[in-house]
C-alpha cells in the first residue's frame, strides 16, 4: 500500500490506471485536489469522467479493484455517496473513481459532489416562483398604462390576456391626434397636397438646381444630429449679413464634409437664409452625391458660379482647403492647409461683398483619419480612401460619426468693397487678403479649442 502511494505521480497521469497504482489512490489524489479548491471540483470530475468514457475497460477494472479494498471503516460512507452521486449528477458524470475513496478526506469531498446538485436544484425552482410574480407585475403595469391611456376606471376587472382591439385603435387614434394636433384634418390635407405636388413635379428649382423644399426637410433631419449628437454651439451669428451677398470662408475637416452640412444648418437656423455651398467638381461627378448636392443648393466652386451667387445676393460658402483639409491625417488636426489660390477673394472683390471667416471646431474628431490607401483611392478616382479607427473595421457601424462637441464661430466680416473690383486682378493684394482670412480662422480655432476643452465631454 505504501509503495503504491509513493508511485502516485510518477507512473503516469493520475486516474489513468497504470496497472501499478490503484485507482482508488488516483481518485484520492483527485479528491484531495478538489477538496483544496471547491471550484476546481467540477473540472476534476469532468477530467475523471472523460477517461472513464474513453476507456471503459480500465474503468471496469478500477471498479472491480475498488470493491476489494472497500472493506474498511471509512468505506461505510462511500456507498451512499456513490448512490447520491449517481442519482443526481447522472450516470456519465459519476465516474467510479470518485466513488471509491478510502480516506476521510475522500469521504469529505464526496458530500460536496453530492451537495452541488442539491444546491443547484432550488435555483431552478425559485425562478419559477419569481417569474410568476414578475409576470404579474408586468401585467399589472401594462394594465395600469392602458387604463391611464383610456382614462376609464376598471380597477376591479380582471386583466385579459391580450390587448383588446378597440384599445389599440383608440391608442393609435390618440397618438395620431397628439402628433398631428387638433387641426389634424387640415394638416393631413396639407401634407398629402405637398406629397402630391412633389410627385407631380409642381415645385420650383432655381437655375442652380436648388430646391428649397428639400432643404427644409433636411433641416429637420439634421437638427437632432447637430443639437443632441454634436451639441453644436454657434457664436457670432450677428456677423452674417441679414441681406445681400456674403462669402463665408471656413476651415475644412472631418474626412466626410459634415462641416458643410452643419454650417448650412446653423446659418439657416439662426438667420433664416440659405447657405449656398461651393463644392469640388468631384462632388458633381459622383452619382447621387452630386444630385443631392445640387438640390441642397451647392454648385461648382468656380469663379463664374461664385460671382453669380454673390452678385445675386446669396450667401455662398466656400472651404478653400478642399481635399487637402478634409483628408488630412488626424495628427494634423486644426492645422490649416493652403487656402487654394485665393480665388475666393477675387470673387468676393469682384462682387464687392464681405468675407465672413468661419471657424469650425469639432469636425476633426468625427472621423479621425489614421490611414489612407492611395493606390485604391487612385483606382477609384477619389482623392483619398479614409481609414479611421472604426471605419473598415466595424463596417457600416464605423460610419457613425464620433460624438464630438462642435463650436462654429462666425467671425467679423472682412470688407472688400474698399477695394476696386479691378483690384481682384492684383495677385499681391489677393495673397494678403487670403492670408488675413486664413490667420483669422487659425487664431479663432486655437481660441475655440481652449474654450471647448475635452473633445467629447
Amino acid at each position, binding site marked *: 500500500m505504501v509503495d503504491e502511494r509513493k508511485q502516485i505521480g510518477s507512473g503516469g497521469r493520475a486516474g489513468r490506471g497504470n496497472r501499478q497504482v490503484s485507482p482508488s489512490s488516483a481518485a484520492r489524489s483527485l479528491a484531495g485536489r478538489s477538496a483544496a479548491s471547491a471550484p476546481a471540483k467540477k473540472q476534476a470530475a469532468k477530467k475523471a469522467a472523460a477517461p472513464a468514457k474513453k476507456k471503459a475497460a480500465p474503468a471496469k477494472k478500477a471498479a472491480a479493484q475498488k470493491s476489494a479494498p472497500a472493506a474498511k471503516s471509512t468505506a461505510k460512507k462511500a456507498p451512499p455517496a456513490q448512490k447520491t452521486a449517481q442519482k443526481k449528477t447522472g450516470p456519465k458524470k459519476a465516474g467510479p473513481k470518485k466513488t471509491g475513496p478510502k480516506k476521510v478526506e475522500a469521504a469529505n469531498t464526496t458530500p460536496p459532489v453530492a451537495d452541488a446538485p442539491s444546491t443547484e436544484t432550488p435555483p431552478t425552482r425559485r425562478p419559477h416562483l419569481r417569474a410568476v410574480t414578475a409576470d404579474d407585475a408586468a401585467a399589472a403595469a401594462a394594465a395600469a398604462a392602458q387604463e391611464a391611456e383610456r382614462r376609464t376606471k376598471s380597477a376591479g376587472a380582471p386583466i385579459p390576456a391580450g390587448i383588446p382591439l378597440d384599445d389599440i385603435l383608440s391608442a393609435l387614434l390618440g397618438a395620431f391626434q397628439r402628433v398631428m394636433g387638433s387641426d389634424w384634418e387640415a394638416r393631413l390635407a396639407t401634407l398629402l397636397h405637398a406629397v402630391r*405636388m412633389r410627385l*407631380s*413635379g409642381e415645385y420650383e428649382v432655381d437655375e*442652380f*438646381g436648388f430646391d428649397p423644399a428639400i432643404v427644409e426637410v433636411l433641416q429637420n433631419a439634421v437638427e437632432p444630429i447637430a443639437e443632441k449628437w454634436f451639441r453644436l454651439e454657434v457664436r457670432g451669428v450677428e456677423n452674417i449679413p441679414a441681406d445681400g451677398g456674403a462669402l463665408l470662408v471656413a476651415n475644412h475637416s472631418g474626412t466626410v464634409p459634415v462641416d458643410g452640412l452643419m454650417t448650412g444648418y446653423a446659418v439657416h437656423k439662426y438667420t433664416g437664409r440659405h447657405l449656398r455651398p461651393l463644392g469640388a467638381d468631384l462632388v*458633381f461627378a459622383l452619382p447621387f452625391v452630386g444630385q443631392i448636392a445640387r438640390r441642397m443648393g451647392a454648385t461648382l466652386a468656380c469663379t*463664374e*458660379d461664385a460671382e453669380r451667387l454673390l452678385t445675386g445676393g446669396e450667401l455662398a460658402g466656400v472651404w478653400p482647403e478642399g481635399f487637402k483639409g478634409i483628408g488630412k491625417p488626424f495628427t494634423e488636426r486644426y492645422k490649416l492647409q493652403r487656402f487654394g489660390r485665393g480665388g475666393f477673394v477675387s470673387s468676393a472683390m469682384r462682387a464687392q461683398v464681405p468675407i465672413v471667416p468661419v471657424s469650425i471646431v469639432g469636425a476633426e474628431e468625427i472621423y479621425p483619419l489614421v490611414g489612407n490607401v492611395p493606390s485604391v483611392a487612385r483606382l477609384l478616382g477619389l482623392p483619398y480612401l479614409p481609414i479611421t479607427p472604426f471605419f473598415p473595421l466595424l463596417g457600416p457601424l464605423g460610419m457613425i460619426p464620433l460624438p464630438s462637441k462642435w463650436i462654429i464661430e462666425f467671425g467679423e466680416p472682412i470688407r472688400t468693397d474698399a477695394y476696386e473690383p479691378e483690384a481682384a486682378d492684383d495677385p499681391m493684394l489677393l495673397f494678403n487678403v487670403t492670408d488675413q482670412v486664413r490667420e483669422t480662422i487659425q487664431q479663432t480655432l486655437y481660441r475655440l479649442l481652449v474654450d471647448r476643452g475635452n473633445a467629447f465631454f
Partner: protein
Amino acid sequence: MSRTVLVTGVARRFASAVARHLADLADTDPDAGVSRVIGVDTVVPDEDLGGVKFVRADIRTPVVGKVIAVEDVDTVVHLDVNPGSRNRLSGSSSKELNVIGTMQLLAACQRSGTVTKVVLGSSTAVYGTSPRDPAMFRESMAARGGVRSGFPKDAVDVESYTRGFARRRPDVLITILRTAQALDPELEMPLSAYLRNPVLPVVAGYDPRLQFAHVDDLLAVFAESVTHDRPGTFNVAGDGVIMLSQAARRLGRPMLPLPALGFAGALNRIAHAAGSDISPDLHRLLKYGRAVDTSALREIFGYEPKYTTADVFEQFRQQVRPGILAGIGAR
C-alpha cells in the same frame, strides 16, 4: 435696303419654319427689309414652303456658290447644323453635312462679293456637358468637357470655321445664335423625341438641369438678326431650368433609372423598341445637363424671351399624350 436671304437645310422643320417666317415678313412688312427668301437642301421638303423659293442644291458641293451668285444673295442663314439621328443620318454622314457643308458654304460666301451678313444657327451643345461645368454658361466661356465627339464637336468646329471666316472677311456681319432645344411636337428635336417615350430611361444618380427655348422666340431672334445688324454670339433659351425628374413627373411618365455604365446603349434600345429615335449624343446631356445665361441676348442683342423654360415645357405637356402616371398630377 432689301435683302435676299438664303436659308440652308429647309428640309428640316425648324429651318423651313424660319424660312417661312422670313418670307411672311417679306410679304406683310415691307419695312422689314426682306425681299426674297431662298431655301436650299438636298432633299425636297415635305411641307409647303409658302413664299420661299426652293432650290435643290447640296451645300457640300461648290454648287451653293452658284446659287448665291445667281440669286444675288446678301444674307445667309445657315441652319443646316443638326444633330444626327439614327434613321436619317448618323456618325460620319451627319458630321460631313455639318462640317463639310459649313466649310463649302463659307468658302462660297468668302468668294461672293454680295454676301454682307451670315447668321449661324448653332446650338448650346458647343458648351458640352461635364461635371466641371459652371451652373450657367455665358457666351465667353469655353466648354469644359463633352465636346470630343458627335454633334457637340461638330458645333464647336462649325463655330470655329465661322470665326475664321469672320477674320478673313471682316466686312461681313456674323451673328452666331446658340439656341437651346425647342420643345415642340412638330419639330424633330432630340429632347422632344426623348420626352415622348412612354418610359423615360434616366441615369441612376444623376438629375440633369434642362433648358428649352420656345419656337416663337427662336423665330423672332432669327428674324431680328436678319433684319437688323446684331453681330456677335448670343445664347437663346428660356429663363430658368427644369430638372429631368421634374419634367418626367410633370409629364406623368415613369422614370427608369439605369446605371451610368452602358446607359447609352440601353437608351438607344429602349427608344428603338418604343418606336422613337434618339440622338446619339443625348445620353451625355441626360447625365450632367446644361444651362446657359441669356443676359447678353437681353442687354446686347436687345431681345427679351417671351417664354420661360417652364412655359415651354407646359405647352409641350399639353400637346403630347399624357403619360401613364398623369393621374396623380396636380393639374
